[in-house]
């Protein structure tokens, strides 16, 4: 790999939650494992082991459906605290290779290995003869210490590292040099480019753009007209230009809390209370991490599994439920249009930045001070020690534990 390019790795902990469960309980090894909940309960699959994926069970499959396909699988409720511990341990291992680590989510992280002491440079001694050897050592470290597998892709940009990582899964190691990556790019489907989701893929397909090679023929102004700033980026990505750096510290991109109900509900008071509770949990986490959110999204799924969501930019970034609640209410009123039962509600805070707070003229700081006071009480006595009026009646519908009401996507929600 030429030295004038960066060396960037993407490490993907394949089926992370299921792998952790298999590491903790060796009898599950080689067997299909489904994390998300017990088969008789409602909710969705949060993580399926590769053994289970072979039979079509994946993230988002309703648990009932998963059980129909895989009655013999181990269905586990999962424990977020254990997964967080494992993820910290994984990041510690990354730290031995480079300080430049950008966790993308709780099972994936970019490492910038350029200039890392682990990489050999002309005239310098190093532990490794090649980048491939380094990648293998990283995989071995994780396997030996934590007994879980991962896929590693190493190349010269984040985009290429991701493409490399997806070539061999699970447990793969792929190193692609810059020239080879550039040569591969035109043949790949556009979906492989960063930020190209299903909707965009569909829009592009309607324009006859299926591969990156097709995209190369679309002039920059056309892409910008159609997709704005992102169109501009895709024009670059299609040419192998990806200037995104590995940015340590940007750990958390969004914070979500969501829950599936035991029984579908059309009760606006109950749904509103649940939303407020989810918002409280999101805001509590924001304050704990000393972050503020710039955008908030509300998602709901109806009883027939059709789902709707919408997002709004806050007029000023905040981590106070008092500030964000009007937006959440407005979003919910906008998307909840059918007179049908709701089975799932979720709130996501996005555009997170380090906390700051613009003090308001007409809104007293009392609600913000109150929230901080509640955080302190709950840190000592548990979340359930004190509830707000809006959420106190949720106890009729949710099971209560020390950590507050138990949400029904335990692996993702705290």
């Amino acid at each position, binding site marked *: 790999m030429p030295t004038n390019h960066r060396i960037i790795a993407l490490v993907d902990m394949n089926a992370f939650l299921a792998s952790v469960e298999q590491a903790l309980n060796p009898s599950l090894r080689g067997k299909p494992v489904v994390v998300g909940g017990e088969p008789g309960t409602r909710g969705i699959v949060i993580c399926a082991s590769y053994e289970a994926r072979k039979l079509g069970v994946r993230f988002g499959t309703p648990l009932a459906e998963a059980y129909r396909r895989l009655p013999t699988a181990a269905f586990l409720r999962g424990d977020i605290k254990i997964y967080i511990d494992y993820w910290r341990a994984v990041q510690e291992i990354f730290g031995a290779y480079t300080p430049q680590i950008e966790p993308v989510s709780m099972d994936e992280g970019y490492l910038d290995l350029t200039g890392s002491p682990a990489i050999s440079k002309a005239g310098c001694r190093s532990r490794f003869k090649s980048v491939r050897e380094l990648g293998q050592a990283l995989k071995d470290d994780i396997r030996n210490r934590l007994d879980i597998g991962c896929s590693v892709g190493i190349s010269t940009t984040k985009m290429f590292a991701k493409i490399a990582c997806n070539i061999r899964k699970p447990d793969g190691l792929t190193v692609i040099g810059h020239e080879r990556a550039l040569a591969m790019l035109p043949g790949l489907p556009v979906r492989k480019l960063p930020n190209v989701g299903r909707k965009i893929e569909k829009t592009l397909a309607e324009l006859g753009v299926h591969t990156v090679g097709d995209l190369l023929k679309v002039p920059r102004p056309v892409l910008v007209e159609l997709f704005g700033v992102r169109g501009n980026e895709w024009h670059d990505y299609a040419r192998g230009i990806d200037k995104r750096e590995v940015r340590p510290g940007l750990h958390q991109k969004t914070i979500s809390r969501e829950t599936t109900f035991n029984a579908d509900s059309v009760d606006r008071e109950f749904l509103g209370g649940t939303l407020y509770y989810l918002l409280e949990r999101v805001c509590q986490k924001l304050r704990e991490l*000393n972050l503020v959110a*710039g955008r908030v999204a509300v998602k709901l799924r109806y009883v027939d599994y059709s789902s709707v969501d919408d997002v709004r930019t806050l*007029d*000023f*970034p905040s981590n106070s439920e008092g500030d964000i609640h*009007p*937006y959440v209410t*407005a979003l919910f009123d906008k998307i909840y249009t059918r007179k049908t039962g709701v089975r799932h509600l979720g709130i996501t805070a996005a555009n997170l*930045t*380090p*906390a*700051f*707070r*613009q*003090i*308001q*003229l*007409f*809104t007293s*700081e009392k609600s913000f001070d109150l929230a901080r006071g509640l955080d302190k009480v709950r840190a000592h006595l548990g979340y359930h020690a004190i509830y707000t009026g809006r959420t106190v009646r949720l106890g009729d519908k949710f099971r209560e534990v020390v950590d507050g009401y138990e949400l029904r996507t335990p692996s993702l929600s705290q």
Partner: protein
Amino acid sequence: MKFKTDRANLHQAASKLLSIVPPKSTLPILSNILFELEKSKLSLKVTDLDVSMTSTIDVDAQKAGAVAVPAKVFYEIVRELPDFELEVSTYENRMEIKCGAGVYKMSGFSPEDFPKLPDVHIGRQVKIDGAILGRMVKKVLFAVSRDETRPALNGVLWHTTEEGLNMVATDGHRLAKVTRSDLKISGQGKDIIVPPKVLDNLVKLMGDEAGEVGIIVNEGSIVFVLGNSILTSRLLEGPYPNYEQVIPKDNSKRATMDKEILQAAVRRVAILSNTLTHQVKFSLKKDELELLATNFDFGGEAKEILKINYGADAMDIGYNANYIIDILRQTDGAEVLFDLNTATTAGIVRSAERVDNENYFFLVMPLRLLD
């Protein structure tokens, strides 16, 4: 419709109207100028349904009539034509402009398709000095909120009291208030909230010419009469928040600063402030102000120390640099006064200079400094 007129006459009238025409509208008719010719008076009318404007010019009329044609295209034609007499005529909603040997034609719409603008009875107008009105509006316009969740704040409050006419604007982070004791708009039993678009256009329309402006306040709308132009706007619905309640009465820590020096220093330091918060820390000590900004994204740090006049307790306050810059831009005179209380309460900024019959000040809320 058929008339003759100078190019400059028509160009000037059209250019005044252009900023009212909505750039993108779901109603295509709103992208047009309505021309109405009656006797020797040609009226050009535009509207975005909230704000409307009519400009009337004298022309050499040959045949009365009306048509609506695309505003931008019409404006560009009269802008580019040479300075000769134009002959404008219409035939079945098509307009033809003849200029020397040039002929320009375009299709328009029937005048019936154009929204009917409210009738204005200019007899009831109150006349006030345009220069004073423009000065008041400029002082507060920057503070108008863009937050659509609080529509009342999306305008300037005109509040007539015993003190005179007050104009107030706030976005909840800063507030601007200007009072003229020699101005009263009669027939003002109650407050009105005027949207910024009409005020912005009013200031532009007045330019540097300080003539008289006629004002008519109707139920739900306001009319401004300036020479041959009439601007009307829908008023916003209240209630406007009780702003008087948030104006601090006991800000006893006064810092006196040179405005130009402070403004230049804040602008410099702000370059290295956080791009989202624009936070600049004001550290006040005895006769000294330290400005500090940091930006973690590129390890930026900027510091300036200014000599000021300050005798109260030392204090650190965070401000959004843009708010301070906006305020200083509207503060006249060489010296600016900051009347402060605590690091988390509103500060009052005003000019050290006094103008007869006029009083204005700005409130600015701090940013809570990170621990």
